[in-house]
């Protein structure tokens, strides 16, 4: 009781701080998921603009996840809807927060976690910041004070901009992988690339969140000569066995996904280009539909406006190299 005089003002201070931070969060957050509104990852958040509960599968991860798979391509091939929520350099704590956000708007049956993200380097401070940013978005968007307009003070944030590529980052260009990478690519080994304790902790959190929501989790390694190797494969295999989560490594499936590293990569074996992505989707989309019993919506008129009718626009967009990088 002797500290009561100190604790009450402290609680009042914390409460007032939270209220003000929430106000500032609304003030500084981009009012839409567009570049014009100041959003730096507008494509990844486009799932909020999709009709509620219309997405069957979500893809989480870093840049690998958003360049190696295309939801619209998979829809065209297999008929299920998906959305790629990956963000460049995303770590697992960010992927986890993204997953929680996805389930506020959508109810996907399948969550695909791109395995490259499992080896992302981050620590508890980054994780703490990610959590803080999700509670008080002003921490993420604070620098937007420089661009505030009068309407920022009067409007509430609502992401309504629908993305025709559904989060996919497209690239036409081809930049062959060097021989020193392709020669040693997926050479068999007993080595294991270490998975950090915090990374493992977040994979477990993602797994338990998916179980709670009734969604299946798939660990997926997409082709990349620069980022993937057998030691990573072994580490992910161990993790998948421990957590009893399916793990699929497309790097070990050259017959099913015949990537030609002289033409199918846009940046020397780091990410795939459109041709490489199509090879992945050609095999992956039917596999996912069958394995996870995902519904085919191609003949469902409810999906015409947001999927079926947009395919032509999508192909037009991805077949045209953007005038500048920021366009993509």
């Amino acid at each position, binding site marked *: 009781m002797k500290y009561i005089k100190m604790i009450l003002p402290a609680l009042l201070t914390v409460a007032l*701080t939270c209220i003000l931070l929430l106000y500032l969060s609304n003030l500084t957050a981009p009012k839409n998921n567009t570049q014009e509104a100041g959003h730096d990852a507008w494509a990844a958040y486009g799932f909020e603009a999709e009709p509620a509960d219309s997405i069957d599968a979500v893809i989480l991860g870093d840049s690998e996840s958003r360049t190696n798979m295309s939801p619209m391509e998979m829809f065209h091939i297999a008929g299920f809807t998906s959305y790629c929520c990956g963000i460049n350099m995303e770590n697992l704590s960010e992927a986890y927060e993204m997953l929680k956000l996805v389930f506020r708007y959508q109810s996907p049956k399948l969550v695909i976690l791109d395995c490259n993200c499992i080896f992302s380097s981050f620590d508890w*401070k980054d994780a703490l910041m990610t959590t803080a940013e999700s509670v008080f978005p*002003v921490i993420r968007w604070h620098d937007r004070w420089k661009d505030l307009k009068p309407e920022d003070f009067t409007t509430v944030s609502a992401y309504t901009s629908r993305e025709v590529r559904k989060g996919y980052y497209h690239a036409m260009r081809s930049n062959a992988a060097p021989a020193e990478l392709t020669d040693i690519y997926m050479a068999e080994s007993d080595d294991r690339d270490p998975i950090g304790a915090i990374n493992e902790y977040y994979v477990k959190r993602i797994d338990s969140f998916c179980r709670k929501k009734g969604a299946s989790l798939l660990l997926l390694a997409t082709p990349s000569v620069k980022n993937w190797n057998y030691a990573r494969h072994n580490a992910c295999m161990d993790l998948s066995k421990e957590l009893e989560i399916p793990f699929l490594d497309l790097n070990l499936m050259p017959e099913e996904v015949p990537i030609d590293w002289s033409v199918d990569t846009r940046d020397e074996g780091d990410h795939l280009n459109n041709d490489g992505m199509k090879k992945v989707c050609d095999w992956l989309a039917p596999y996912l539909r069958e394995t996870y019993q995902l519904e085919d919506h191609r003949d469902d008129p409810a999906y015409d406006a947001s999927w079926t009718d947009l395919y032509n626009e999508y192909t037009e967009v991805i077949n045209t190299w953007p005038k500048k990088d920021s366009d993509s």
Partner: protein
Amino acid sequence: MISYCSIDYLLVFLPAVLLGYLVLPKHLRRVLLLAASYGFFWYLSGPLLLWHVAVCAAVWLIGLRMKHVILSRGEALGQIERKDREARRRVRETYSRKLRGWTILSGVICFGILLSLKYTPFFLQNLNAVLARTGTGMQFEIPVIAVPIGISFYTLQAMSYVFDVRNEKLSAEGNFFRLTLWLSFFPLLMEGPIVRYAPTAEKIWEVDRIKGENFQKGVWRILYGVMKKLVVADRVNMAVELLYTDFAKYDGGMVFLAAVLFTVQEYMEFSGTIDIVIGTGECFGFFLPENFRQPFFSRTISEFWTRWHITLGAWLRDYIFYPLSMSAPLKKLTKKCRARFGNHYGPVITGAVALFAVWLFNGLWHGAGWSYIFFGMYHFTLITAGSFITPVVMSFCEKHSINRQSAPYAFFQRIRTALLVAIGEMFFRALSLKHGLQMFVRIFRHASLRSFVDGTALKLGMDLQDYVIVLAVLVFVFVISLLKEKEVNVRQKLYEKPVPVRALITAVFVCLIVLFGAYGAGYVPVDPIYANF
């Protein structure tokens, strides 16, 4: 590197220690503080902590030996009759020699560790340069030596304890843990202030319970420091980096801007950190000494050094300047100079000898590099020259009826002092002494203000809004400083407000820092500048 402005410290470490302190009984609070301090040290420096323990053990044991010598001397003197002055003098001399021996031993241990860890590469680099000129082809490999955090700070603290015991200003501490807690208290580890044993150790060891008023005022002080560091120091970091690395690409105006921006950055970073340190102490109820007293209100460089890094200045004054000035050879020299050059210039000349030692030590203490030695000599020259020309300035002002107490004259003096400080800081920050000299020459040889109007100033990683927010915070700091100069206790006045008002003030302060802080994507936080010293 972790700083007192980091998430680790502000959101995890400090709240955890405060919470533990709040709930633990009094006798366990000391254990908590000691464990937290050594835990913090370990977090920053790992096994290098052993060097710190070695220094603690050395000064503790030597202090006890000195205490024994002092007591023995008392007993020996007690056995000699008062009239027998010669015998008493001999006893005093004998024991004084013993005390001197212990002091030298402690100096050898403490400064020996400091010199060997921090200055060996610098010494060998210079030795190699000399050897290269001799043409022998002999060269030493420059070792990479890991240095414990804040070694320069705790070494000075440890030596102040030994000097004070030797000068019988305090009795040697019998409790090793009490001495260790004072020497390792976590807020003081990285950037000081350099605290003396007598007033601080006892207060920390008392571990009184946390009081609401101290806690509230401590939190405000911490927030004030975080604002200085996060909103200003980190925001100008990119511009400072660019300007100092590529100064040759810019005109004189931009190089001068580099000098000003680094001065701003260093003041905001160092004084901001000290605000966090002092605020941390206040939260626990420990009142640590101030290290800054509105330095840019100084009218002379001498005054500046009584307001900037006060505890270092006081250490140099008490343990180098005074002992040297009062030494027999210098007293003799003063007498001679007084007779030859008069009452003003005589003491100034001998004072310059002691000052030279002070500033050489000051320069070297800041870092192992010629630019730091130059920095010390620069200030030595300015202070000595200031003393020499004082009579000339006085007579000039008298002749031209210039009132030296008038506000315009004081303003002129303050601007002049600030400019001289900024030039000194430019040498301090420059990548080498050569770069510092080149930058200095560039200011005049390529003097131009074009970069300020052609947009160059806005291509340094800072846009117009950045400059505006930096300026706004500087104005805020200036107002607070002005109120402090007028001895207005701002925090006391705020504390007298009702609880909801106080809570609102704190909440707004936090939100302004969150909103205007230079953190996250696009910013690289500046490492604590003084933690490397």
